[in-house]
């Protein structure tokens, strides 16, 4: 069992998203950080969470095809409306 300052692995996972979003208090962040330094399971879970966030962040970006379609559709609508 890995516990750091009364914070269990379950406790760390419960705080993980706030940790990722910078929403923990300084003392909470210290305690979570210390646990992550000592617990390979939680450190791996954090790494996995970060990989997912990075992938999500890059997934809704510049889709040329979507933009092409929107531009074309708008131009047609505006041309038909005389705008």
């Amino acid at each position: 069992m890995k516990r750091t300052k009364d914070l269990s692995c379950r406790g760390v996972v419960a705080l993980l998203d706030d940790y990722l979003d910078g929403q923990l208090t300084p003392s909470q962040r210290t305690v979570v950080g210390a646990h992550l330094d000592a617990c390979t399971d939680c450190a791996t879970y954090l790494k996995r969470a970060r990989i997912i966030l990075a992938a999500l962040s890059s997934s809704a970006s510049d889709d040329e095809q979507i933009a092409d379609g929107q531009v074309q559709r708008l131009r047609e609508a505006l041309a038909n409306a005389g705008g």
Partner: protein
Amino acid sequence: MGSAKPLTGVEPGVTGHSRVGRSEPPVPDSDQALLAAVAADLNQGQGATSPALELLVRRHGPALRALAASILGDAVLADDVVQETWMAAFRSAAGYQGRSSVRTWLLSICANRARTNLVKERRVVPFTRAWRNDRAEPFDPSAFSPAGSWVVPVTSWDDLPFAVVSAAELRDELTARVARLPLRQRQVVVARDMLGCTPSEVTELYGITSGNQRVLLHHARATLRAALLADAKGTDGP
């Protein structure tokens, strides 16, 4: 279209212009200036050929599409809503006052239109009902012993036999998983983690409290993490 009023101020950090063609006047780069240019072009009956319109749409169109799709769960409806969003935005461009960024303003118009579409289609899920379906904790408590430690060691994805091997595959898998999330979770995770909206922008977009959006986000993320591990292992993950 009404006459365009010149907008004062340029978004901080954005300078310069884009030159579309050698004989054409430079097109502004900032969103505010682009919006004003589109309004001016529309007022002169040149909206269909407006280079500023194309720049603005290319810059924000995919994000609007992702937001609309997250609300509607339907790509075709999302495209229609985005078209309505752009038309509404250009019609009201002269009234844009810069209280929020152009991007946030566009996302707000889009979210409102998408929700109106949901109501029209009678596809609204009462918020309280959706809320009650979420567990108190976003993760599966059975993944932990009574003492709070992991029951099964957490394995790095690199060590799993069926782990996703490329970033593109992971993105595609996540996109599919996000589409299957409950509506409220999907809306929040798309806005926060895919579109980079701040918590306050999301609460404003969806008319929810900061606490609500936080819990929805955490549930969504936990579901995605668990689903990906289950896919990789071929079993149910924590």
